[in-house]
C-alpha cells in the first residue's frame, strides 16, 4: 500500500507516536515552562488504560478516550503539585511521580505486575490503516500546538514560563493556566500511550521508566524547548535513528545522554535555537525559551 514496505510503515507509525508524545511534553515544559521528569508515567497510564479497556471488550475508540481521560485526570492531580512546589522541587516531584507509577504497576497484579499486559487487541485497521490513524492524530496535534501557541492561553503560558511572579502581578490566573497545561499535556501523552499499546500489543512497567521520561525530554530539549517544528524534527529523528541503524541502538543511551549534555552546554535553545541563529544574526534570544 502506498508503495511502502511493512517495515517502513511500522517505522512511520513509531515516529508518529513519538512526535505526539514529544509534543505533549512540549505543552507543559516548552510552552508553560514547568519541567517534568516523569512524563513517561502518563504515557504509561494511557497505554495501560487503553490496553485494559480493549481487553475487556471495549472498542478501540473507547480505549483511547479512556486513556486520554484517565491520564489527563491524574495529570491534573500532579498539576496541583506544580502549584505547591516550583523549579527544582517540581522536577524532583515529577520524577517521584514517575517512580511511584513504576512501583505501583510492578506490584499490582490486576495489570500483570512485572509481567505486564500481553495480547492487547490490535487496532483492527491493519498496519497501513493504523499508520494513517496515527498520522491523522499527528496532524491534529501539530495544528492544536500551533493554534495554542498563538492563542491568548499560549501567550499566558509564555508569560508564566518567563517569570511566574510577574505573570501573577499583571493579573494572570497562574494556577489555572498551569493546571490547564498539565491537563492538556498529560491527556495527550495518554493518547500517545494508547497508540503505543495497540501498536506493540505488549506493555510492561519497564516500557515507561525514567529512561523513557528522559528520552522524551531529550526530544523536546534537542528540538528546542517550546519550538513546535524543532520538537517534531527531533522526535522524528531520535525515534527512528536507533531502529534504522543497529549500530546506534547499542549506543542509543550514550547518544541521547551526549546530545542532551552537548545541547545544554553549547546551545540551550536546541536545534530551533541554532536555526534561528543561522537565519538571523540579530537573534539573541531563544524563541519560547522560558525558565523552568
Amino acid at each position, binding site marked *: 500500500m502506498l508503495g511502502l514496505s511493512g517495515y517502513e510503515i511500522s517505522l512511520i507509525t513509531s515516529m508518529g507516536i513519538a512526535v505526539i508524545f514529544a509534543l505533549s511534553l512540549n505543552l507543559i515544559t516548552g510552552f508553560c515552562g514547568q519541567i517534568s521528569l516523569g512524563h513517561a508515567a502518563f504515557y504509561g497510564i494511557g497505554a495501560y488504560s487503553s490496553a485494559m479497556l480493549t481487553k475487556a471488550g471495549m472498542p478501540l475508540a473507547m480505549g483511547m478516550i479512556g486513556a486520554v481521560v484517565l491520564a489527563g485526570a491524574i495529570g491534573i492531580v500532579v498539576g496541583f503539585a506544580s502549584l505547591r512546589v516550583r523549579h527544582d522541587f517540581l522536577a524532583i516531584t515529577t520524577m*517521584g511521580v514517575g517512580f511511584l507509577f513504576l512501583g505501583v504497576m510492578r506490584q499490582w497484579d490486576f495489570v500483570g505486575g512485572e509481567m505486564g499486559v500481553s495480547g492487547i487487541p490490535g487496532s483492527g485497521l491493519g498496519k497501513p490503516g493504523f499508520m494513517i490513524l496515527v498520522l491523522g492524530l499527528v496532524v491534529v496535534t501539530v495544528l492544536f500546538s500551533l493554534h495554542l501557541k498563538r492563542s491568548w492561553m499560549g501567550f499566558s503560558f509564555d508569560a508564566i514560563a518567563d517569570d511566574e511572579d510577574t505573570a501573577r502581578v499583571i493579573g494572570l490566573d497562574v494556577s489555572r493556566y498551569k493546571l490547564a497545561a498539565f491537563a492538556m499535556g498529560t491527556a495527550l501523552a495518554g493518547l500517545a500511550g494508547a497508540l503505543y499499546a495497540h501498536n506493540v500489543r505488549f506493555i510492561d512497567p519497564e516500557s515507561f521508566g525514567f529512561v523513557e521520561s528522559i528520552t522524551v525530554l531529550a526530544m523536546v530539549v534537542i528540538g528546542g524547548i517550546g519550538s513546535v517544528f524543532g520538537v517534531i524534527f527531533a522526535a522524528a529523528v531520535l525515534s527512528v535513528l536507533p531502529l534504522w541503524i543497529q549500530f546506534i541502538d547499542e549506543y542509543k543511551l550514550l547518544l541521547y545522554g551526549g546530545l542532551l549534555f552537548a545541547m545544554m552546554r553549547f546551545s540551550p535553545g536546541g536545534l530551533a535555537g541554532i536555526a534561528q541563529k543561522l537565519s538571523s544574526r540579530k537573534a539573541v534570544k531563544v524563541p519560547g525559551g522560558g525558565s523552568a
Partner: protein
Amino acid sequence: MLYVELLAQGLVQGSIYALVAVGLTLVYGLLRILHVAHAGLFTLGGYIGVLVTNATGSLFLALIVSMMVVGVLGMAIYRLCYQPILDKPPYVALIASIGLFIAMEEIYRIVFGPYGISYQNPPLQSSVEILGLSLRMGEVAVGGGTLVLIGALALFSTKTRFGTVWRATVTDPDMAESFGVDIIKVRYLNFFIGSALAAVAGVMVALLNNLVEPTMGSVPSYKALAIIVLGGLGDVRGTLLAALALGVIEAFGTIYLGNYLDRDAIAFAFLILVLMVRPQGLFGRA
C-alpha cells in the same frame, strides 16, 4: 528483635544515602544546581575501589585512590560542564547533568562490560555480634566510616579558617567575595569534598554487594535527589537526617508495604507526601 534489626539495616542503608546526598546538597547550596551526574562519580568510585583492591590487595589504598581520582574528576566536571552555564536558567544545568550522567553510565558499560566486576577476595566479610545483633564487618565499617567522615566534615567546616570561608560563601556568595574570598577556589573545594564522599559511598556499596555494575548509581542518584529535597535543599544537617530517616523508612516499608509498592517507590511516595504538606522540605526553612 525484628525491629532492632530493621532499624540497624535502615541506618546502614541511610549512611550510604547520606554520603551520596551530602555532596549533592553541598553543590546545590553553593550553585543551585541539581548535580545528577554526582551518582556517576559514585559509581566510578566503586569501580576504582574494586580495581585498586584487586590489583594491590589493600582496601585502604583503594579508598584513598578512589577519593582522590573522583574528587579531581568532580572538580573537572564543575570547570568544564557547570561553570560555563551558571548564568542560564536552572533547567539547563539540570538537563545537562542528566545527559552527562546517562553518558557516564554508558561509558562504564562499554569500558568495564555490562555485567559488572567484583572483589577477588572480598574484604570485611566476617560477621560480628553487637548488642545481640549479628552484623557483617562491612556494615559496621559503613556505619562507622560515615560517622567519622561526617564528623570530620563538621569539624573542618566549623573549626578551620577555610571551613568558615566555605560556610560564608554558601550563605552569601556576593558578600563573601567582597571580603576577598576567592569563590572559585571554594567551588573547587566544594566539588572535591562532595565527590570524594560519593567515592567512599561507591567503595562501600561495592563492599556490601560485592558487585559494581554500570547502573549501580541510578537508584541512589534519584533517591539522593529526593533526600536533599526532603532535607530542604542545601541544608547539610537536614540532608543527613533525611538520609537516615529514609533508610529506616525503607527498611520498615519494605516489610509492611511491600505488597503494594516496591522499595524505590516507597521513598518517592514519602517524598511527595512530605512536599505536599511542607513544600520547603522536612527540615527546610519556609
